[in-house]
């Protein structure tokens, strides 16, 4: 379904393009050997070049180049044999050199694309380019009434700016695009995708138009740092633009900021106020040359990417497209699934992962990879259910406790006294007790009150303290009532 904003007069379409800034997961910075470790004391991870000392010179970190190439390859994009670093000039206290080293005319990666899936439909989103650049430091304005402080730990960290074509046309598509991009970046390990730490953030270009019209004037919303905020910012901004145009006014091209507290965007600077960055090739850095051999050897390093993995999971494990998408989104989950599904029913395994395991991970605030959960831990529990040693419901009830215990599933349920009651004569005993305690209900049931069957089941389960094998209870009760 197309996303449409109903204005007072017309229906409006939204056109979106994203510039995603992804910090490269590297040990050291793009042009210095300073550490990129997050959360260290301010200004403790700063080399000469990161604080713009006189005579300091940048030296490219080859690892970061490799990560950009890997990312380009995974975005199905063209890797440029030669790219050029430029200086982007502007004054700001947290920009120590007085310029940011970036790539302007000749980025390291050219056109590519990724696929996103919205409401079961696959849509191809064009990537315009990917370039490498330095991050700035951080200005802290809230530490002191009179003074601002500067932390240069982030100064010089490597960023990839990934620019999309204006192919996105709804907040949900934008969200799916960022999710997919993040998933890919995490698969190849070029960026940890942590939006809370600011390691992944997006500038969102928004414009609106009536159907069939040419592109409208766009506004750029800077530095949005969560997927939810991206959606909210687009929704607000698109409506704001529709109102302006329908009131007979014009959109002014400008840079805006999203305020998550008020859920609105505010003007930051207009195009007239925008900087003249005076880009020019950085004379401290020769052109970056990437050989075919390098590209080929990096190609070999590429893991199976989410789209391919998804297709394979659908094919091999007969997963639904939706389930496969959920499972492959995170590489750790996909690996976990593959180990767990061996010799087990894929549907059951999927349900357990996307149900109990996910909600448990959310509770302990970890991802599957660093949670330390072994696939066998879940597998042995699933096996007990399949073998009817324990009911699904029982398993779910004790799941958290089981996860926290170090016991094997069979030992755990034994200790808990949870072993399922599957002994026919024992179950008959309970059934008979329930029936003899409720003679009137038997009459009512036999006179057509079918619903009472559920009542009898409930009573049996209650007396057995939930241990009775529900399937068996069902079977035996039917038999008894027919007698």
């Amino acid at each position, binding site marked *: 379904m197309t996303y449409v904003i109903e204005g007072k007069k017309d229906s409006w379409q939204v056109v979106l393009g994203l510039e995603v800034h992804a910090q490269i997961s590297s040990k050291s910075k793009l042009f210095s050997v300073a550490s990129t470790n997050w959360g260290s004391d301010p200004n403790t991870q700063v080399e*000469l070049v990161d*604080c*713009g*000392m*006189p*005579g*300091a*010179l*940048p*030296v*490219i970190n080859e690892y970061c180049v490799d990560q950009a190439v890997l990312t380009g390859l995974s975005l199905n994009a063209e890797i440029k044999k030669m790219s050029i670093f430029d*200086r982007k*000039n502007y*004054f700001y*206290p947290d920009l*120590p*050199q*007085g*310029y940011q080293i970036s790539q302007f005319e000749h980025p390291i990666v050219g056109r590519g694309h990724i696929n996103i899936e919205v409401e079961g439909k696959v849509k191809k989103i064009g990537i315009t380019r990917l370039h490498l650049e330095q991050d700035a430091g951080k200005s802290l304005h809230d530490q002191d009434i009179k003074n601002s402080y*500067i932390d240069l730990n982030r100064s010089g960290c490597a960023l990839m700016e990934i620019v999309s074509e204006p192919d996105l046309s709804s907040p949900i598509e934008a969200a799916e695009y960022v999710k997919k991009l993040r998933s890919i970046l995490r698969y190849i390990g070029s960026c940890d995708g942590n939006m809370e730490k600011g390691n992944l953030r997006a500038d969102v270009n928004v414009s609106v138009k009536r159907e069939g019209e040419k592109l409208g004037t766009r506004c750029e919303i800077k530095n949005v740092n969560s997927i939810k905020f991206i959606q909210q910012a687009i929704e607000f901004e698109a409506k704001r633009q529709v109102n302006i145009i329908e009131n007979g006014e014009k959109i002014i091209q400008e840079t805006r900021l999203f305020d998550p507290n008020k859920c609105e965007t505010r003007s930051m600077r207009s195009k007239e106020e925008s900087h*003249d960055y*005076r*880009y*020019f090739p950085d*004379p*401290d*850095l*020769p052109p970056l040359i990437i050989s075919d051999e390098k590209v080929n050897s990096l190609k070999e390093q590429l893991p199976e990417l989410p789209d391919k993995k998804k297709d394979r999971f659908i094919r091999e494990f007969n997963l639904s497209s939706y389930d496969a998408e959920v499972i492959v989104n995170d590489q750790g989950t996909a690996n976990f699934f593959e180990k767990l599904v061996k010799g087990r029913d894929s549907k059951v395994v999927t349900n357990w992962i996307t149900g109990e395991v996910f909600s448990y991970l959310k509770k302990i605030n970890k991802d599957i990879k660093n949670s330390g959960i072994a696939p066998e831990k879940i597998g042995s529990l699933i096996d007990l259910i399949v073998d009817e040693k324990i009911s699904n419901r029982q398993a779910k009830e004790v799941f958290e406790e089981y996860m926290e215990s170090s016991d094997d599933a069979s030992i755990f349920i034994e200790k808990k006294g949870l072993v399922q009651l599957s002994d026919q004569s024992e179950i008959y005993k309970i059934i008979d007790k329930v029936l003899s305690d409720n003679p009137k209900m038997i009459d009512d049931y036999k006179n057509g009150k079918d619903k009472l069957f559920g009542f009898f089941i409930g009573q049996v389960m209650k007396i057995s303290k939930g241990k009775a094998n529900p399937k068996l209870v069902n079977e035996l009760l039917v038999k008894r009532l027919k007698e």
Partner: protein
Amino acid sequence: MNDFENLSISSAIEGLANKNFTSLELTEFFIKKIEKNKDLNCFITSTFDKAIEMAKISDQKIKENETRPLEGIPIGMKDLFCTNGVRTTAGSKILENFIPFYESTVSNNLWDSGAIMLGKTNMDEFAMGSANTTSFFGNVKNPLGLKVNKELVPGGSSGGSASAVSSGLCLGSTGSDTGGSIRQPASFCGLVGLKPTYGRCSRFGMIAFASSLDQAGPITKTVEDSALMLQAMVSFDKRDSTSSRQSIPDFSDFKKLSIKGKRIGIPKEYMIDGLNSDIKKIWDSGISWFKREGAEILEISLPHTKSALPTYYIIAPAEASANLARYDGIRYGFRHNADDLNDLYQKTRGFGFGKEVKRRLMIGTYVLSAGYYDAYYLKALKVRKLISQDFEDAFQKCDLILTPTTPNVAFAIGEKQTNPIEMYLNDVLTVPASLAGLPAISVPSGFNSEKLPIGLQLIGKPFDEISVLAAGAVIEESRGF
């Protein structure tokens, strides 16, 4: 005490080796001489304690026969090279009290070779100037001018370095050359100034003026000294991405190289309007000396020569406008008190930089601005390629190029100050080789009627410093003084 005033580095090395004198004696001689000649204003910062300490270590090494190539040789270090724990100003108020906590590669190489630092030599602010009249620390005087009772400029930007060597305050000094800042002051002060091929010397720790042009080199009394100092200064440095991996020869091999049969190109375009007639004469003499030595002289053409100066004065300021953006009063250096951030930037940079620096920063900012970039900066890059191509073509026909170093001899302090273009014209003959990144040397070749020195320039093929030095030695032997 010996008089070391006219001592060369090579004879000092010999004297030290023969134990005719000690490094401490040498060093103390120069310390006294520097103190006596403060009016020349050659040094911004002196490091006498350090020098004595270094001299003692050198004497010990000489005693123990662990002599390094420049063991015990007192030199001046241009104040553009960051020296660990020693104030480094680049001749600017904005770095008036800046003390680096790191050492430039070039200075480090020299100390590792046993050289001794007497102090940091005066220079045009951020190496922008051709007369050493833009330094925040005052003008430098040319000692040769004083001999004819004139207050003459030593040239620039390495004016303090040149004046110090010329007046015998040190045995040699470092310079940096962006458009002629080694060769022009060497010429004005009667010295040998060598700008090696771009990339030979690391730029790490050398305060940047125009990164694609800046290159360190020695200022010395003789060609042999030039080779000795150059040897110590050069290295491949992984901290400078433009540093060259080209193998480093033994530069003293220039002595074995005969100039016989070499083809010396004489570019007709260097015969510019306003070329001083005395200089023209010396140029002709130079040609005859090479002929006499069996070199082949041929006229060549470097057709884009006249565009070199305007090209240089677009590219160098453009790069400088970004290179000097870091001097903002935020982290180090001079900071003017201010009401808000913009005020801080404006006052810090407004008061921290001198007039010439501000002029070039404005030119640089202008030529990179939207709407002007293509017409100025981009075009200048294209012309720069053409200039390099000129040299490439010329070097198909010849091995070396012989030209005057400057259109005029040293002029009076205060002269050429009214119109910046007049000052910029000083560089007209040195700038082309800078733009092409080629090695070039200025060698004293004669005098004008007032006994002021005239230098000739030899430009070589990339990384062929040895031929340049060999040809320089021919001039030295032929000139008759």
